[in-house]
């Protein structure tokens, strides 16, 4: 199968709101349990170690009408929360035995409560990530939270998880994150070889299958991508910022690229490369995951930045990727992204870096005005910067 065929095949998988890969896994593992995780990040290693399949639940991406969820969640709330609930209310998440909602924002947090009242058959957990990045007490607190989560998975699967097993899972996820980084290096260094749309499909499908299978897929496609014969174009190099939780329509990513941009870095599916460095595999794996969250996480609007303000980190990303401009692209109603936006764009203005701003929704159908905006942005960056 050619790389292009691989992409098209997986595109149909990620577009299917019935979670075909999960159904397939369950048919092969009749007693297997499945955990769904709401973005942005959850420690999937714990599920893997307990023999539970962790699966990313990223809403319905505009593929279903919001009908039942309207009576439970108001209209001034982001699409992903509403469409995720809609999936549940339409019985499309029945394969999931447990669901985790991490402490990314008040919407995700309260959704965990709505879930508890509407789906008592599913085991729902809310994860409180530490927000005090400098307290000496934070690692112990979060280690205990991880221990609690692991306990719920052990009772779900009936398997006790010794530290070696968890260390093994961490190693597998480290490998997967390293391969993901390879894709991002290709995007940054030779962006003509891999479009953001393609990278997205390859990574998104990874949220729907066992990590070993996904790493195999990445190991196969990375050399294929490197061997593609594609010419470099006179495009501007941009960053996309704001897409860490609710995912934009794929057409929107394609429009940005078609309008003359190489997206050399972004915060799409941030979960797939949450840590800047590998999680150390030595000693206590839970403590290692806890320390990594506190000290190795990439910056994100859903996590307090600790001693390194986000604007500073955005500038580093701009400089290290040799970026011409930044596209702020946030989901409508997303408070973390929209509140951060002001400080981030102020810093870009201070540094003389161009940016463009627009919002999206899952159900967006027309992209022509965005295309025009991006084209104008590209021209202004090319000719006036």
């Amino acid at each position, binding site marked *: 199968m050619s790389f292009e065929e691989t992409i098209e095949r997986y595109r149909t998988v990620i577009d299917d709101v019935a979670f075909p890969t999960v159904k397939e896994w369950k048919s092969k593992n009749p007693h297997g349990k499945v955990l769904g995780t709401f973005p942005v990040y959850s420690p999937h290693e714990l599920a893997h170690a307990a023999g539970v399949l962790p699966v990313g639940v990223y809403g319905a991406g505009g593929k279903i009408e919001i009908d039942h969820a309207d009576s439970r969640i*108001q209209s001034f709330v982001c699409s992903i929360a509403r469409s995720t609930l809609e999936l549940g209310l339409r019985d499309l998440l029945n394969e999931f035995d447990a669901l985790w909602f991490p402490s990314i924002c008040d919407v995700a947090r*309260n959704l965990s409560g709505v879930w508890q009242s509407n789906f008592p058959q599913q085991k729902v957990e809310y994860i409180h990530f530490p927000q005090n990045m400098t307290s000496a007490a934070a690692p112990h607190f979060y280690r205990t939270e991880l221990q609690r989560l692991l306990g719920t998975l052990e009772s779900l699967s009936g398997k006790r998880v010794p530290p070696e097993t968890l260390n093994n899972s961490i190693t597998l996820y480290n490998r997967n994150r390293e391969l993901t980084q390879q894709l991002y290096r290709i995007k940054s260094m030779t962006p003509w070889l891999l479009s953001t749309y393609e990278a997205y499909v390859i990574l998104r499908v990874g949220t729907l299958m066992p990590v070993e299978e996904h790493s195999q897929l990445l190991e196969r496609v990375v050399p294929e991508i490197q061997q593609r014969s594609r010419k470099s174009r006179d495009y501007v190099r941009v960053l996309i910022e704001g897409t860490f939780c609710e995912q934009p329509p794929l057409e929107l990513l394609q429009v940005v690229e078609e309008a003359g941009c190489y997206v050399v870095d972004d915060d799409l599916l941030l979960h797939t490369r949450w840590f800047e460095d590998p999680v150390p595999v030595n000693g206590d794996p839970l403590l290692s995951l806890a320390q990594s969250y506190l000290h190795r996480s990439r910056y994100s609007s859903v996590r307090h930045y600790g001693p390194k303000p986000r604007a500073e980190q955005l500038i580093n990303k701009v400089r290290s990727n040799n970026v011409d401009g930044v596209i702020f692209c946030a989901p409508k109603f997303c408070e*973390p992204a929209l509140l951060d936006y002001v400080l981030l764009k102020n810093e870009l203005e201070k540094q003389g870096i161009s940016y463009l701003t627009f919002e999206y929704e899952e159900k967006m159908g027309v992209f022509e005005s965005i295309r025009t905006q991006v084209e104008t942005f590209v021209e202004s960056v090319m000719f006036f910067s």
Partner: protein
Amino acid sequence: MSEDKFKFQGVGREYQKQLLNAWYERQQSAHDDGRKVAYLFVPGNIAEFLRVFDFELVFPEINALQCGVRKTSGDLILKAEDVGYSSDVCGYVKNDIGMMLAGNIGPSGHTLPKPDLLLCTYCGCTTFIKWFEALSHYYNVPLVMLDIPYLRGETIDDVDRQYVVDQLKELAGVCERITGKKFDHDKLVEITRNSAEAEDLWVQILHSAKHKPSPFDSYFEAVFFMAPIYALRGLPECTQYYREAMKEIQERIDHGVGPIPEEKFRVVIEGPPPWPHFRAFWELLKKWGVCAVASSYSKVGGYWDHGFRHDPSNPLESIADYCLTCYTNLNLPMRTDLLRQYAEEYDADAIVIHSVKSCRSFSVGQADMREQFIRKWDIPTLLIESDLADPRYFQVAQLRNRIDAFFESLEHKRLVHA
């Protein structure tokens, strides 16, 4: 209410106003008087702890709501939107940032001091973090985090409590560095004792709404009566305030009167008020003889009516428990159940949910709560939407229609059942 019969009516509102005004005066002169200023949030605030170091306390939320009441929030919100804040983000944040951009003159006309300590008491609202990250940038003051784990179960976990206590101990060092004052355990004991005493009195006022008619509106009046327990807790004048306020309530009980001429419907109200249209909203309900006998908003900063008190014999642990159990830190099933309990304890006829766009922490899940009140417990529930700070979202005609229709149907039901 004839003059001779009533000696204490109006005390609660008036005395509160005086105390707040004096507090704004103290804020304005803090730096000139050599006192340091701490900014923090109302929910789960650690006033007792900070008073050990003689910090003057500033609550940006209180400033924002006061701007709402004084109808200046609309313009301030627009100022923040002019510099890039979205129309879809929290109106309190925009009000505060707009006020800062306009020269930091507070709602009372006093100049607000800059923070020496920017303490992000992350207590059930993620937007708090964004808010103080922005202030940290604008004031160039480091953000100090006090991370309060959200309640994942129904009770306080020992590890969560210990995490908060450990952070408080670390915070003591930060406060010592900023103020040059040593942490004094005995002083903390004394302050928490003051708090507990005020809390006892406040709970008596809250519980008085069990009388019929209720002597007190636990939402529209509570917002005034609760100001000292959140802003001035730990100070002797806070306790003194509740002694005086209780006299007003007792007098009403003695004479069988309440905040409205005739109590026809007793309701529990969930959600913050629409500050810029506070009176208009009250009138819409008063017209139907509605008295709020309990509310969640009066527990937004802390929740005492089921037994919690600051504990002088265990001050740090009790401060941790206070933070962990304020209303905004309760999980949604706990919030739902608390409102249901209120409806029962206070013999309410209905629950009114005022859902505000600004505050997703409050509002997401309220529609689901309504479903549960109606289906599981057969409690008539009205859900209406507007905002706590942004005057643009208060559609009076629409609200009137919803409110009238709801109480008309309750009245009708009553007639049929009578």
